[in-house]
């Protein structure tokens, strides 16, 4: 990766928006990596939670939005529960998802969910899944 850092990056409006809707402050993160270390799904993420926050600190809006990380996060709150700085990466991922979903862009088509799953899975999985993946 190569970044050209400009003042506009550091003052990224996108990052400010995410911070506003999530109530988190990316600057609080000092990159200890505890979140990535404890995250049960970071192995599946393009960038682990602390890297996403690092990219936010550097104002790399596109890299943050292009990563699959936000869709992989399950919101188990393990990151937050052990964060020495009280930052919730889970909240940040939710904010990133919300920005996409509020534009009406779905991450998951309901038709694509196989019928046995629709019938067999607990309702709560569907409700929660729709909340997280569907606008």
């Amino acid at each position, binding site marked *: 990766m190569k970044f050209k850092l400009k003042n506009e990056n550091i003052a990224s409006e996108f990052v400010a928006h995410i911070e506003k809707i999530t109530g988190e402050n990316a600057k609080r993160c*000092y*990159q*200890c*990596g*505890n*979140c*990535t*270390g*404890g*995250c049960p799904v*970071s*192995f599946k993420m393009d*960038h*682990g939670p*602390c*890297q996403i926050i690092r990219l936010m600190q550097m104002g790399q809006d596109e890299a943050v939005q292009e990563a699959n990380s936000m869709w992989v996060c399950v919101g188990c709150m*393990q990151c937050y529960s*052990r*964060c*020495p*700085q*009280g930052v919730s990466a889970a909240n940040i991922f939710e904010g990133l998802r919300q920005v996409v979903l509020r534009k009406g862009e779905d991450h998951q088509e309901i038709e694509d969910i196989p019928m046995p799953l629709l019938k067999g899975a607990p309702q709560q999985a569907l409700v929660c899944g729709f909340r997280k993946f569907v606008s």
Partner: protein
Amino acid sequence: MPRIGVFVCQCGNNIASTVDTAKVAEEMKDMPGVVYTADYKFMCSSPGQESLKETVKEHKLDGIVVAACSPHMHEKTFRKACEKAGLNPYKCEIANIREQCSWVHHDETKKTGTIKSIDLTRMTLERLKRNKDLTKISIPITKRALVIGGGVAGIQAALDIADGGRDVILVEKEPSLGGNMAKLSETFPTMDCSQCIMTPKMVEVELHDRITLYTYSEVEKVDGYIGNFTVTIRKKARFVDEDLCTGCGDCWNKCPFKIDSEFEHGLTKRKVIYTPFPQAVPNIPVIDKENCPKIQKDKCGACALVCGPECIDFTQEDKIVTEDVGAIVIATGFDLMKNSKFAEYGYGKYKDVINGLQFERLASASGPTAGEIQRPSDGKVPQSIVFIQCVGSRNEEKGVSYCSKICCMYTAKHTMLYKHKVHDGQSYVFYMDIRAGGKRYEEFTRKAIEEDGAMYLRGRVSRVYEKNGKLVVQGADTLSGSQVVIEADMVVLATALVSRDNAADLAQKLGVGYDKHKFFSEYHPKLKPVETVTGGIYLAGTCVGPMDIPESVSMGSAAASKVQALFSADMLDREPITAEVAEATCNACWDCVTACPYTAIDRTEIKNRKGEVVSMVARVNKGLCTGCGTCVAACRSKTIDLAGYTDEQVYAALNAF
């Protein structure tokens, strides 16, 4: 009519950029009593002071106002200049037109700054007109010092003071001198053996003619003030006669009861009658009262049966002793934070998760394994050890916000000790930043990595759990952006350094400040690092905050030099800005006595010629009074006034506003 001079300082551009100093001087010219005014670029400079002195003489001034920076900066400078010019120094007053005036007003037309400066100067002028000549108070000094804490900082302070020819009382709460340093194996970055360099100093203290050593003792109470403290010390019952005991060890060899050793941090047991470690100073055991069946229920008593000199006395009680001293050095050291806050690391749950001091004991030749690195659970030599730094440190959520400063270095040292003892062993270090600022420190950590092969991983550990007899460490390496899982044989936590449990208590007894982490506060973090706000009380070592051995030793010596400086004069001059009671109108309500934070006001009897008490009045001890003015505010009959700040002066200043 008074003859007053007003000097307005430009302070380069600090004042002049927002205050028209010439105009301020001009305005003062017309004030009654003012015979001379001037504005000048730097009043505090040598030429500035010289001109002040000459003007005082030439114009026969009997008072001056310097409108300049805060009195904290240069009040002393100008008062000294006045004194040299033959004027009573307390006839010099400072009007602060910089800190709360020129620095806070940004009006480029200088209007606001100038108006405010004129007001401030005029007020000071009116106050000055009512100043009386004051003379410094002289108090005697007891030239003996108390050092609280027998770790390396306290020992250094005690030895330096004693070597300078002054008597020292050294109080240590444990049964032996040594503190935390005595527990260490080798020390960074030189790798010399801690006990080898520490024990000679401990012995030196014991043998020093000028040092009185109270071990197993605690300071109960401190009265008095700089130069004149009275200290009450509780000598806890040892149940062993210190004068008779030879330290032969028959008693502890015979004692059948074993308790977890505090000195070894639970890695091994000690007896109920014990010395904390073999090189203890003094080499005299104590009986752990709580766990001794003889003392608790009159059973056993084996130690007394084998004691040749018959020095064991189960009926011994605590002794209270008082000592008069002129200065006090606090050097009470640190504790490690309790790891129980970090259940995710399994300290206490898994035997092979230990803290840094426990590792020191494992690596120490005098430790429970005679210096062999063996894991506590089964005594096997670990083939891999994970060291986790910043456990509790730099963790605002669950620990402390500060950096514990020494862990980066001692962890690097641990990896080296491990490699030197277990050649095929592999160490892993999870760190956030390697903080190796210090002489030969950076080279030391590089050596750990490059020569001794420690694998450094930049990140925190999320959790530690046990699986098939291994400790699984799950963390991150943020440099590669990956999650890292290591199966290790042992885990060492570099736990945060914290203040002693009773630090706040002791601070209150001594009347010194402490911060939110209960570390003692320096008078000024840069310029008065060993002084406290209370005169005659000094600080040394980790009771101030995390620091390493060289710093603790330096601080011990620095505190000692402050004590020596204090003791170099026979009398001590103190500022005469103190409270004064007009005894004729005092109605002895004692509100002032209750209000005084320094216990500086006494209830005094007034007797007639026959020696009968006719009335009671409040009287201020000038030695203790700091001139804070609390009693003045509390006094209902307006009987108390503060010299230099009398009600009359304050009202005059207000009226001038």
